[in-house]
């Protein structure tokens, strides 16, 4: 099949998955002003921002002769789980004849899930599928591992130098075929990065910011105004609550790894039950960041995001109780780079000042 998918975070991972299964993969375009404008034009006004971005990406892909678009589903109550159905409707209404394959959890509709897996698997054997999944999962983990290092080192080194290493690593990861190659490239770049480790100051002088929020705007740099790099630029380290490997693990292999679950459970103090999206988990991560000695939290969310509005509502109380500064930034088609930069800068200045006074 000739297929494509929405652009989110390290797209290499999805490309690799379908490529290794023998499909003809068309890389989706990276969101930019043109795509966002296109998406906004053909999406409902109050749809969340990721929906609009994805509409734009799909429309941009329409002249690529695709057989199908593959996207993830969900069982709500976050709207993201219903994107696929509404996108189908919009594309159809505009006269495009392309299939959207929504990967829903097998728990929701087993037969449908099985049909889809069979189609995506194509001619590959089940053993091959298992191997591919393992490779891709290892690839995601390797990339996350390197990115976590980057997010620390960029705070103390020339941004360009570090970014170039990261881009190179991604290019090389794009070429891999086997799990062994993933390991090889991972080690190569971890070694390369360890040369910079001398730049990290003593523990009590390090300043750290945790980024939490809705997964799309947290993972996708092209729409969150490169918030991480902005924070790094002022000499602060960054860690996110969301990495792609975690998301894959939670959704595809829920039986392994309880550590994440434990962090997310901490959110129960403020949001008692699951309300959809990652709201409860994000609150848990905010508390966890504080307990790990982070100096501040940046909370990213798309305009009108249902679950994150609940977490933002309880955030003031959390900030007071746990004595950790929180900056909430709403992202949509009107977010201006300078606005984000100014707010981040003011926020970080305040944190630095506070720390400085504490030391004196």
């Amino acid at each position, binding site marked *: 099949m000739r297929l494509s998918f929405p652009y989110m975070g390290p797209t290499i991972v999805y490309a690799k998955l379908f490529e290794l299964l023998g499909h003809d993969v068309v890389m989706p375009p990276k969101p930019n002003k043109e795509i966002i404008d296109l998406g906004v034009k053909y999406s409902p006004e109050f749809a969340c921002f990721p929906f609009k971005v994805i509409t734009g990406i799909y429309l941009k892909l329409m002249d690529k002769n695709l057989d199908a678009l593959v996207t993830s589903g969900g069982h*709500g109550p976050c709207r993201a789980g219903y994107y696929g159905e509404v996108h189908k*409707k919009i594309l159809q209404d505009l006269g495009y004849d392309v299939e959207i394959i929504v990967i829903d959890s097998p728990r929701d509709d087993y037969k449908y899930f099985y049909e889809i897996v069979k189609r995506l698997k194509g001619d590959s054997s089940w053993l091959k599928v298992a191997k591919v999944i393992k490779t891709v999962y290892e690839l995601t983990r390797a990339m996350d591992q390197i990115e976590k290092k980057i997010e620390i080192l960029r705070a103390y080194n020339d941004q360009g130098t570090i970014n170039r290493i990261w881009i190179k690593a991604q290019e090389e990861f794009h070429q891999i075929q086997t799990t062994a190659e993933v390991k090889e490239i991972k080690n190569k770049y971890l070694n390369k990065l360890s040369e910079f480790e001398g730049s990290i100051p003593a523990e009590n002088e390090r300043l750290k910011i945790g980024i939490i929020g809705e997964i799309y705007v947290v993972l996708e740099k092209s729409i969150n105004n490169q918030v991480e790099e902005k924070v790094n630029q002022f000499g602060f380290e960054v860690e996110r609550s969301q990495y792609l490997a975690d998301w894959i693990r939670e959704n595809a292999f829920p039986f392994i790894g309880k550590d994440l679950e434990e962090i997310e459970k901490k959110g129960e103090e403020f949001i008692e039950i699951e309300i959809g999206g990652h709201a409860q988990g994000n609150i848990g991560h905010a508390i966890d960041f504080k307990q790990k000695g982070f100096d501040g939290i940046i909370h990213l969310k798309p305009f*009108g995001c249902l679950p994150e509005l609940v977490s933002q509502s309880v955030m003031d109380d959390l900030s007071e109780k746990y004595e950790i500064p929180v900056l909430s930034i709403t992202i949509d088609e009107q977010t201006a780079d300078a606005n984000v930069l100014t707010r981040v800068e003011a926020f970080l200045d305040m944190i630095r000042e506070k720390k400085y006074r504490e030391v004196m």
Partner: protein
Amino acid sequence: MKKTKIGIPRALLYYYYFPFWLKLFDELSLEPVISDNTSRKLLDKGVKKSLSEICVPIKVIIGHVLNLDQKDVDYIFLPRFHSIRKGVVFCPKIIGLPDMIKHSLPGLEAEIIADQIDSKSDDIAQISNHQQLAEIFSIPKKEMKKALTKASNFWQRYRNLLYQGYLINDFSRLEDLEGLEKLISKFENEKKIPQSQRKEIVTPGNEEVVDIAVIGYGYNVSDQYLNMDILNKLKEMGVRIHTFSMVAAEIIEKELSKLRKPMFWEFTNKLYGAAEHYLKNDQIDGVIHLTAFGCGPDSMLGQILEIDAKEYDKAFMTLRIDEQTGESHIITRIEAFIDLLRLKKENN
């Protein structure tokens, strides 16, 4: 002995369930106190205490909670509606409402009762849905069960009248149980038929009557302040009004079963089923989607309905209300819509 006062905010699910709660508290010898009708002052207070980009219904309920707190109630009844159908839940903001209230209104003096509602149907009378309530007032299980059954039966009578074509607004101004009981009995025994079913409707200018389905949640369609009393305005213009609560559960079920994947939100699904039914119905001249600023589920539903309306060639209009909607803008839009429908009718 002075009865314990329990405040019920006149917002969100109140409009769907208030007869149930009034009866229940009466049976349990508790004194329900209902917040005032939404007003400028009440809404302003809610707006001040909530996030600017949150939807209007949440701003409204925060205003009502603050209003209750000023009435010296001992408790505020704010059940956490999670699910009233297998596999379908409520909007995240409704599920997380008690959390938002507890953590964003720290000055609240009344205690919040937030029993989690998990039911298989619209009937929420299960004892598991009222455990916190029973515990706080040490109500024995047997007594609780009895009260719940009575409340449920009373609510069913109200619900049946809605199915027959009465509007929630026909009841919701009443807040004492006695008056409500009388009204329900009166409607049940009366020969008069509800407005939505009447053949003859007299209009001021003897214009032709038009049938409009107003698709919106109970709390938007029935809050007369918030929606600028749109229903009465429509009635005055000679419109027979149809709403989702008049559509039989089986019809909604049938429409939903046609979807590969229904939506995740209880009342959004109900609106979808009802709207599809009305879009296909020849008796209906037009559909108005009445939605509130910032409503997430409606952004999805609205898009689907807009495309479907085109397919069925039915007149469709989206009317969005928010905390600063001007009255004249609503009147202008519905007048224009109705004029067009009448013109279309005459040309046929």
